């Protein structure tokens, strides 16, 4: 009789909202690479006498994310103070939301391993301020003091949306998928860059394991997972740890643990002080946040088409494969680029192929974002149209494409520099060229006509010669067709 163990996982995701200024003051949120303590003011340094004023954009982004997560947005909500002492928290309280969060009761679908959609409950989404950053003594040289840490408040006050899931996740892979769906969503909405490495999307996991004999281990909270991979590994490690403890009849204590990525283990972060008592109470410096009539509806109307809807539409409308639809809707820029190509006349399938292979390859090779891609959707579409109209072969198009990437030149100069003419070689011109090749390869022609080219190898060889001669400017199917008809005649 062997015991069965079911992991129960819930995630708390902190998403930095992509506003220009902080949530309660006008300091810039652009702290990556900034000189420490430059994006600060009396408010975000916690100076006495300062008061918070809420950023309208943070509310807008929070509402937008809430709606996309199918949450119910509260018309009247308020902020609370979460009190605790820590040097990265200059007021010694974090302004957050507590009993009346901005939004509640949502869900988001993930795709299970068997391919079916599974809804994951969203408990709540609330707004809060980020803390500053602590730098501990490093090899920096200047920061070598063994007994000191250093505080940079640039990040303090950057708006966060905290998204709390229900404990609906069962496997590390599901957790990973859930996070990547949330990340894709916030990027689609334009409310965050969702970058885990940069820390603009941070995940804490609550995990416990249920045993088939009825025992249920206490929950552990895991922090410090800075990538999807780290999340998956940390959860795998933790599940194994819980199962081992339960199997050995040991008691799991409720605690916070830190993921150590280099060692591949979680470590208990024992706090030497007494347990936290955050003493939440309503923030008296901020009256309730009341959304005006029609505000939520307006935000709902402003929502872009969500990635999963767009994927379905790409499949249904453009007849793309599951894989192509997924690839092209992975991010909003690519999906927009694709549809812009179609608007400029590109055919759905060839455009999809071209983007998936050529464009994505160039982006990956150069670690480039689509917004920095040197060729516009209009030009890509123009090439596709020429290919669609058999005026440009795939090979020629690739040559021109490479030329444009390398030299950032426009389509027509690229074509003329590659010595490729729009319209390519076709019709009588192509027929004359094929005749010439046949004359030059009389021996091969004879073999074919005598019926000895059983597997068509020799005919393919001739076609290759033609293609080489046309430098890809001929439509391969037209070449085959002309070749076939010339070989038959006579």
């Amino acid at each position: 009789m062997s015991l069965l163990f079911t992991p129960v996982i819930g995630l708390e995701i902190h998403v930095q909202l992509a506003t220009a200024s902080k949530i309660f003051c006008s300091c810039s949120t652009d702290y990556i690479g900034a000189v420490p303590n430059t994006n600060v003011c009396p408010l975000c340094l916690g100076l006495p006498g300062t008061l918070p004023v809420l950023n309208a954009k943070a509310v807008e982004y929070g509402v937008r994310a809430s709606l996309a997560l199918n949450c119910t947005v509260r018309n009247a909500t308020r902020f609370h103070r979460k009190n605790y002492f820590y040097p990265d928290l200059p007021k010694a309280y974090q302004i957050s939301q507590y009993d009346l969060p901005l939004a509640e009761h949502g869900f988001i679908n993930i795709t299970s391993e068997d391919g079916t959609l599974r809804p994951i409950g969203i408990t709540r989404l609330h707004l809060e301020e980020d803390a500053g950053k602590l730098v501990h003594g490093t090899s920096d040289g200047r920061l070598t003091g063994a007994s000191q840490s250093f505080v940079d408040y640039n990040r303090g006050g950057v708006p966060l949306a905290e998204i709390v899931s229900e404990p609906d996740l069962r496997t590390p892979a599901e957790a990973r998928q859930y996070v990547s769906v949330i990340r894709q969503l916030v990027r689609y909405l334009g409310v965050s860059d969702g970058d885990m490495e940069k820390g603009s999307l941070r995940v804490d996991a609550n995990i416990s394991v249920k045993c088939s004999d009825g025992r249920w281990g206490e929950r552990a909270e895991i922090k410090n997972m800075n990538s999807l991979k780290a999340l998956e590994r940390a959860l795998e490690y933790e599940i194994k740890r819980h199962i081992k403890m339960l199997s050995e009849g040991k008691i799991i204590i409720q605690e916070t643990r830190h993921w150590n990525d280099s060692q591949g283990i979680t470590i208990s972060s024992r706090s030497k002080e007494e347990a936290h008592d955050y003493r939440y109470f309503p923030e008296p410096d901020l009256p309730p946040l009341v959304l005006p009539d029609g505000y939520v509806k307006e935000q709902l109307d402003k929502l872009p088409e969500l990635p999963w809807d767009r994927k379905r539409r790409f499949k249904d409308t453009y007849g793309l494969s599951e894989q192509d639809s997924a690839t092209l809707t992975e991010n909003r820029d690519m999906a927009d680029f694709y549809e812009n190509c179609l608007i400029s006349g590109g055919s759905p399938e060839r455009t999809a192929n071209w983007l998936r292979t050529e464009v994505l390859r160039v982006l990956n090779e150069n670690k480039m974002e689509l917004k920095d891609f040197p060729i516009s959707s209009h030009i890509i579409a123009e090439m596709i149209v020429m290919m669609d109209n058999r005026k440009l072969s795939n090979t020629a198009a690739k040559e021109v494409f490479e030329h444009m990437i390398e030299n950032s030149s426009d389509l027509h100069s690229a074509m003329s520099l590659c010595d490729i003419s729009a319209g390519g070689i076709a019709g009588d011109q192509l027929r004359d060229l094929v005749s010439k090749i046949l004359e030059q390869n009389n021996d091969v022609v004879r073999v074919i006509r005598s019926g000895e080219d059983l597997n068509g190898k020799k005919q393919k060889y001739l076609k290759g010669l033609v293609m080489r001669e046309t430098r890809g400017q001929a439509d391969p199917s037209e070449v085959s067709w002309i070749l076939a008809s010339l070989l038959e005649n006579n």
Partner: protein
Amino acid sequence: MAISEQEVRKVALLARLEVDEEEVRSLAHHFDSILEHFGKLNELDLDNIDPFVMDETQTPLREDRAEKWELREDALNEASHRDGDFFRVPRIVSEEG
């Protein structure tokens, strides 16, 4: 309602206030009299009272525009332990927070 000296010490730690033994005694005494006073509030029937009114005022919203504050040098200079661009604090060992 009496409050023990132990409880006073606990609350003082939570509030990060160093208190000596004499202060603990006098604070415990103070708490006793003030809590007795607070106890009066239980005489009232508060069952249907909403503790926080939500409809009186509403918070204004600020336009999302970043501005640079020019006096960060002055602010850093007010710190008793400035270290270059940083505020310096005792080394933090545990990774919690």
